[in-house]
């Protein structure tokens, strides 16, 4: 490890640090190694805050950088430095790009990356769509980026892995930690079929403020961002806003207007997000298919009044179906289960059923 890299690693340990500092120092003719080895006087001159100065002195004098890079090597983690080969180009669009990235797993990953994000408390519908969208993207050789959280994120990673594609989880902790704890298995699968990425030093624990910071990396890495189910106040909306600010394409899956978990993602439509009405549009080269209404045909010839009612009225309970198609509850349940076995209908939330559009 060069002196330059060592200095970057140490400076990056202070969470306020970003690559724009380096650019302004370069203007003064200073490299990070020179800054680090200089004393307090210079630091005060260039306006490094107290916290950073104390931390940098301690880490520099205790030989922390050497140990950190050894630890990273043992974990199979690559350190990716600002302006070095392997540093993702998209990051430069950020106002405060990270100076060092820790990449655990395969690196570099395919150039084309799309992000799939959404709430942790998703509906079964949301998690299914996330999975399907991610498999579709992975199938067309796009690397799927997400945040490694519960809910939509987990479904997106799993979908990409199932399709045999690459996926990247951008974490708000050190790459050697597993948060949330139940994702141990998922993370090791991601490290095999893709990578875990973080700008935080190893063993950095999870804190609430680190996740919005992490979200800017997702926005920067992705060429396109797909938001699936996000309430108004959520990380996914933060990511979408950042992505729009740096000129990324944002897509959103329109949800039911009375559902709490869809309010934010629906609101994005006003802000210029593309509605994702047909998942295939994401991988179609000639742009979104429009005017495709009224062409849907029932290929299976598997038409029943129950299915028709579900298609027309959406989510329904057995009671409502029974009163609409004038059948007994037992017969309705028979029909629903039969169609479920053939993948024509699905259970949605608590006792409701919905048709699967194909």
């Amino acid at each position, binding site marked *: 490890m060069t002196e330059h890299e060592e200095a970057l690693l140490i400076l990056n340990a202070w969470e306020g640090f970003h690559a724009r500092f380096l650019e302004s120092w370069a203007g003064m003719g200073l490299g990070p190694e020179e800054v680090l080895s200089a004393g307090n006087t210079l630091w005060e001159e260039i306006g490094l805050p107290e916290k950073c100065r104390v931390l940098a002195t301690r880490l520099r004098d205790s030989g922390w950088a050497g140990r950190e890079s050894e630890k990273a090597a043992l974990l199979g983690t690559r350190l990716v430095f600002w302006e070095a080969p392997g540093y993702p180009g998209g990051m430069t669009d950020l106002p405060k790009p990270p100076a060092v990235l820790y990449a655990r797993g395969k690196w570099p990953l395919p150039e084309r990356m799309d992000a799939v994000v959404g709430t*942790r408390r998703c509906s079964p519908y949301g998690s299914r769509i996330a999975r399907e969208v991610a498999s579709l993207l992975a199938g067309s050789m796009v690397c799927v980026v997400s945040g490694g959280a519960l809910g939509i994120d987990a479904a997106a990673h799993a979908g990409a892995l199932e399709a045999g594609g690459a996926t990247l989880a951008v974490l708000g902790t050190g790459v050697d930690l597993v948060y949330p704890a139940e994702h141990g298995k998922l993370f090791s699968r991601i490290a095999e079929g893709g990578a875990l990425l973080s700008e935080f030093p190893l063993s950095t624990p999870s804190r609430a403020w680190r996740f919005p910071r992490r979200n800017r990396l997702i926005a920067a890495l992705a060429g396109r961002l797909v938001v699936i189910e996000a309430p108004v106040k959520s990380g996914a909306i933060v990511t979408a806003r950042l992505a729009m600010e740096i000129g990324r394409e944002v897509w959103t899956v329109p949800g039911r207007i009375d559902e709490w978990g869809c309010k934010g993602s629906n609101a994005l439509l006003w802000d210029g997000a593309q509605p994702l009405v047909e998942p295939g549009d994401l991988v179609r080269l000639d742009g979104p298919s429009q005017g495709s209404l009224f062409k849907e045909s029932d290929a299976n010839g598997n038409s029943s009044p129950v299915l028709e009612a579900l298609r027309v009225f959406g989510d329904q*309970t057995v*009671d409502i179906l029974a009163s609409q198609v004038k059948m007994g509850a037992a017969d309705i349940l028979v029909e629903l289960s039969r169609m*479920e*076995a053939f993948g024509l209908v699905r259970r949605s939330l*608590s*006792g409701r059923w919905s048709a699967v559009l194909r």
Partner: protein
Amino acid sequence: MGTVIGVTLKGIEAVPIDIEVEITGGLFVIAVVGLPDAAVKEARERVRAALRANGVLLRGRIALNLAPADLPKVGSLLDLPMAVGMAVESGAAAVDAPSLFLGELAMDGRLRATKGAVPAALLARKMNVPLFLPPENAREVSLVKGVRAFAVPDLGALLAHLRGETPLSPLEEAGVETVDPPAEPDLSDIKGQSGAKRALEIAAAGHHNLLLVGSPGSGKTMLARALRGILPPLTDEERLETLLVRSTLGMRTRNDRTRPYRVVHHTASTIALCGGGASLRPGEISLAHRGVLFLDEFAEFHRDLLEALRQPLEDGSITVSRASGSVTYPARVLLVCACNPCPCGYWGDPLEPCRCPAHVLERYRNRISGPILDRIDLHVSVPRLTPEELVCLEGQHGPSSGEIRDRVSMARQIQQERWKKEGFLSNAEIPERLVRTGIRLAGDVRPFLAQAARSMRLSGRGISRVLKVARTVADLRGNPDVRVEDVCEALAYRGGALANDRT
């Protein structure tokens, strides 16, 4: 065995106790040997006073042996045989043939009710001896067929009977009244929820365990209460089994075929639920034998309490073992559990948003779904309806509880007929082996089941659960073989009711 026989209880079993009395000269004293407990020892005073009140004066040294000597004797039900033994020894009466006596004495010689009259009656029937018992216990004993029993108002009357002066007349066997169980609420009064109502019908018909999941106010508890009104009547054999448990605790018995329905609060202790304590008394699960055990707010129950339910749910009986011995009680219950879909209760609710963080949902789901859910055949979502949907259902009435009960009873009879040889009374009881061999499937069921197992990711246990339920559905429809439509309906009660449920 001598002629004067008493009983002591060991669980739901009555054990005969031989009463031997010897009276010799000397200072007046009554000595009782043969491991009497405090209640039996104190019987000396009650017995002496009662005999004296009826003109039998005791003199000298009286030794009383309760055989077998190494078995602990419990409770006051030995008062009467002790008194009769002393009366016989002092020449005030004679007992020619072996007879069973049961009852607690008042000081003036009246008889008070005791526990264990039904086990004693069964013993008397087995030993083919007459039974003398307190009048308050006459009602329950009259429900047992083939017992020669006499209700004894007081000691004087018994002695007169034994001397042949004024013979008592034997109890008449009471016919069982066919009283319809209370249908409160009646199923036709509950608006909507036709899916859940159908699940109740299947649960009642096949004695399948049932899980109801729904938001607060969706009507879970009401539905569970309505189950009471559609349970099939007890058979003679089943009635006797339930009578036995109740009699062991000295509880009042009803003269009809209504199934037990026990509601357990989540603060209940393991002993209250499963039985135990110093006297090895039966718990709620045994009191609910052949009937319903209802656990409302299932998620609030302690984990170890639910774990304790696993084995009895599997075996249909529970063995209570303590330092003082071990007793096996019957515990074939229809378990009904009700819980919210998530901690705040509004997961998936159309009106109210759920406010639970993701990890809380995960923890909740892990807490509930444990091995106990595997033993529940029917999982049902009880959706809360929006006001618009309620209006849409206005004026529609489903079948009444009475109609459903008739269908359920019919289906239960078919099951009892089918499993008679194996000794089972309902589809839910049959073991894995019989599921594979005893359930006849129509020709096209196997390929369909294979398809469903693939697309719904059913496990082996899942498939046999579905088959058992499908058998009950077929019985309700009157199909001799299980058809595809029956399997389809059974699949609808498979799972997916809880928040984040991945099944």
